[in-house]
C-alpha cells in the first residue's frame, strides 16, 4: 500500500491524523527551523516525544521537518533540532539545506534522512547524488514534474519518492522562490513562511475589498464575494493588455484522481499539505485518502470527488502532474 504522509501542526492534529489512518505524520519544531513557522503552531520537544510515543503505539511513524535554510551565524538552532528529533525517536528528518544534510549525515548517521521538497531535486542525477553522498533514503519531489516524468525518475533511482497529492500548491520550484521576501521581507527559505498573515490587510475600497500583501494589492473582489487569501503567486495582476492570474489561479492541489497513475509510476508515499489546517480538516482528508489507497491496494476504483468540499472553497488542480499545466 502506498504510504500516507499526513500533516500535523499541533499535537491534537497528530493524534487526529494517526487515529484517521495516517501511516506517517510530519511535523516541526516551533521556531525558524521548519517551513510552516506560523504563530501558535508546531511542537515543543516534550510534545514531539509524546507525539512519537502516541504514533508508535498505533503503528505510525513521525517525520520531523527541519526544512528551512539555516541562517548564517545561527546554525546551532538547526543542529539542535536534528539532535532533538533523533532523541525524541523520530523515524526520519526531512531536510533541505545542503550543509545541514552533510551535518546530519556526519553527526547523526543512524537518523534516517529524507530530502525535503524545498531542496527541489527534480531529476535522477541530483537525487542519486544525495543518495550516494549523504545516504538520503527518500526524496519529496518538487511540484514541477508530470506523472510521466516521475515514473521516468523512479526507473533511474533506488531512493524512495514521495509526492504531494492534496492541499496548498506551490507554483514555483520550492526552495527556489524569494517572491515573499521581496514583498514582505519574510520568506519560506529563511523564515519558514510565505505571504505571512502579519503582512496581510483587507481594505474596503468603494464596493470592493482589496486584499493586500505588504501594501501591494494581490486581489480585489466585489464586497460579499469571498476574497481569497493574498498568496503572492496566486494573485490577480496586470500584464500588458491583460488582467488576470498571471502565475496561477487561487486553486489548490488535488491529485486524488491520479493515485493509480502515481502508484504505477513507482511512488512510495503520498503527502498531504496542511500543517496549518485544523484537526478536523486533517482527520477528514486523512480518512478519505486512507480509504482511497486501500481501495487502490484492493483493485477497487478510487472514489471520485471525495475531497471537493475541502479544497479551500476554490477550484482544484492537478498542477504539474498533468503536463499541459505548464
Amino acid at each position: 500500500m502506498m504510504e500516507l504522509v499526513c500533516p500535523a501542526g499541533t499535537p491534537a492534529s497528530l493524534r487526529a491524523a494517526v487515529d484517521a489512518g495516517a501511516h506517517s505524520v510530519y511535523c516541526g519544531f516551533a521556531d525558524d527551523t521548519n517551513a510552516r513557522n506560523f504563530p501558535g503552531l508546531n511542537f515543543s520537544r516534550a510534545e514531539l516525544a509524546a507525539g512519537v510515543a502516541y504514533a508508535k503505539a498505533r503503528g505510525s511513524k513521525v517525520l520531523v521537518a527541519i526544512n528551512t535554510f539555516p541562517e548564517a551565524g545561527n546554525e546551532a538552532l538547526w543542529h539542535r533540532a536534528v539532535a532533538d528529533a533523533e532523541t525524541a525517536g523520530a523515524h526520519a528528518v526531512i531536510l533541505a539545506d545542503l550543509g545541514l544534510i552533510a551535518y546530519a549525515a556526519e553527526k547523526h548517521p543512524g537518523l534516517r534522512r529524507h530530502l525535503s521538497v524545498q531542496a527541489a531535486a527534480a531529476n535522477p542525477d541530483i537525487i542519486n547524488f544525495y543518495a550516494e553522498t549523504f545516504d538520503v533514503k527518500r526524496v519529496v519531489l518538487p511540484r514541477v514534474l508530470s506523472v510521466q516524468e516521475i515514473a521516468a525518475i523512479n526507473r533511474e533511482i533506488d531512493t524512495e519518492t514521495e509526492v504531494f497529492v492534496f492541499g496548498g500548491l506551490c507554483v514555483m520550484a520550492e526552495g527556489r522562490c524569494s517572491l515573499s521576501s521581496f514583498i514582505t521581507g519574510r520568506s519560506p527559505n529563511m523564515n519558514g513562511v510565505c505571504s505571512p498573515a502579519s503582512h496581510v490587510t483587507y481594505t474596503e475600497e468603494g464596493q470592493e475589498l482589496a486584499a493586500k500583501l505588504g501594501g501591494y494589492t494581490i486581489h480585489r473582489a466585489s464586497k460579499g464575494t469571498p476574497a481569497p487569501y493574498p498568496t503572492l503567486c496566486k494573485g490577480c495582476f496586470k500584464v500588458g493588455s491583460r488582467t488576470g492570474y498571471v502565475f496561477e489561479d487561487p486553486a489548490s492541489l488535488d491529485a486524488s484522481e491520479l493515485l493509480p497513475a502515481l502508484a504505477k509510476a513507482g511512488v512510495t508515499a503520498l503527502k498531504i499539505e496542511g500543517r496549518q489546517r485544523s484537526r478536523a480538516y486533517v482527520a477528514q482528508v486523512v480518512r478519505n485518502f486512507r480509504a482511497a489507497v486501500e481501495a487502490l491496494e484492493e483493485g477497487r476504483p478510487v472514489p471520485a470527488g471525495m475531497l471537493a468540499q475541502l479544497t479551500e472553497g476554490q477550484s482544484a488542480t492537478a498542477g504539474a502532474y498533468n503536463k499541459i499545466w505548464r
Partner: protein
Amino acid sequence: MELTIGPIQGFWDAGHWSDFYARLAETPGVTKVVLGELVCSKRLPFYQTRMPEAIERLQTGGKHVAVTSLALVTLKRERKMTAELAGTGLEVEVNDLTALAHIPEHAPFSVGPLVNVYNEGTLSYLKQRGARSFCLPPELPLASVSRLAAKAGTTPVEVWGWGRLPLAISGRCYHARYHDRAKDQCQFVCANDPDGFAVDTLDDQTFLAINGVQTLSDPCANMSHDLTALEAAGVASLRLSPQHTGFFNIIALFHDLVCGRIDADELSARALPLAPGAAFCNGFLGGPNGISWSGRT
C-alpha cells in the same frame, strides 16, 4: 571591488547575442563573464554554435570566463546539457546542484546565485568540494553576506549588484500562459521581451516581471549605495546582470563607481533612465523587504 557580468537572463536574438559578447570582450573594468543558458533549455540551440567564438574573444580580451548551468534541470536533454558542461574544460557556474553531481570531486567550479548558500555549513561543504568562488543568493541580508564572506576566507564572494533580480523559477512558462499557448508550443514568444515583461498590481504598483519560466523583480536591483558596506563585509565582486539596451553605459558607470570617479548618487541618477522597470531596489541587503530602495532617486 571587481565586476562580473552574469549570464543573460532573457531570450535575445542570436545576432545581438554575438555582438554583445564581442563588445564585452573589449570592455574595460570587467574581470569575469558568465555566459550560457540559465533559464530555458529551448533557447540554447539558437546561439549554441556561437558560444565557442564568444568565449575565445572574451578570453583573448583578458576576461575570466565561466559557463552557467541551467537553473532548473528536469528533462533528459537538460540533464545531458548539464552533464556536458563538466567536459567543456571551462569553469562551470553551478546554478542547480544537478551540475555538481557531474563535476568530479575536488575539480574546480563556481557557485552561482541560484544555489541556496545561506550559511557557513553549506559554503564550507561546497568549498571543500572544489568551489572557487560564490555569488550569493540575492535574498541574503548584509549580516549573512558578512558572515559568509568571513567564512569563505580567500575564496572570493560576489553579490548581485545590478539588474532585475531572479526571484523564482517554475515548471510553468508564464510567457506561454500569457499568450494562451502550451509550453511546448511557445513559439519562443519570450523573445519579444528580452529583459522581461512587467507584471503590475491592480493598483498599477510596479512589482514583478516574467521571463519565460522565470520570475524577476520589476524594479532593477542597484547596490551602488551599498558599495562601502559590501567592501567592508569582504565582498570581492559585484555581479551586473545584462540588459538588452544601455548595458555598456551601466558597466562604465559601475567601473567609475568602483574606481572612485563617481559616487552612488551620480551613478543612480545617470542609470535610472536605463534601468529595466524604471525604478530601483536594494532592500534585500538592509531594507524591510527586497523591493525597498534606500537611495535618493
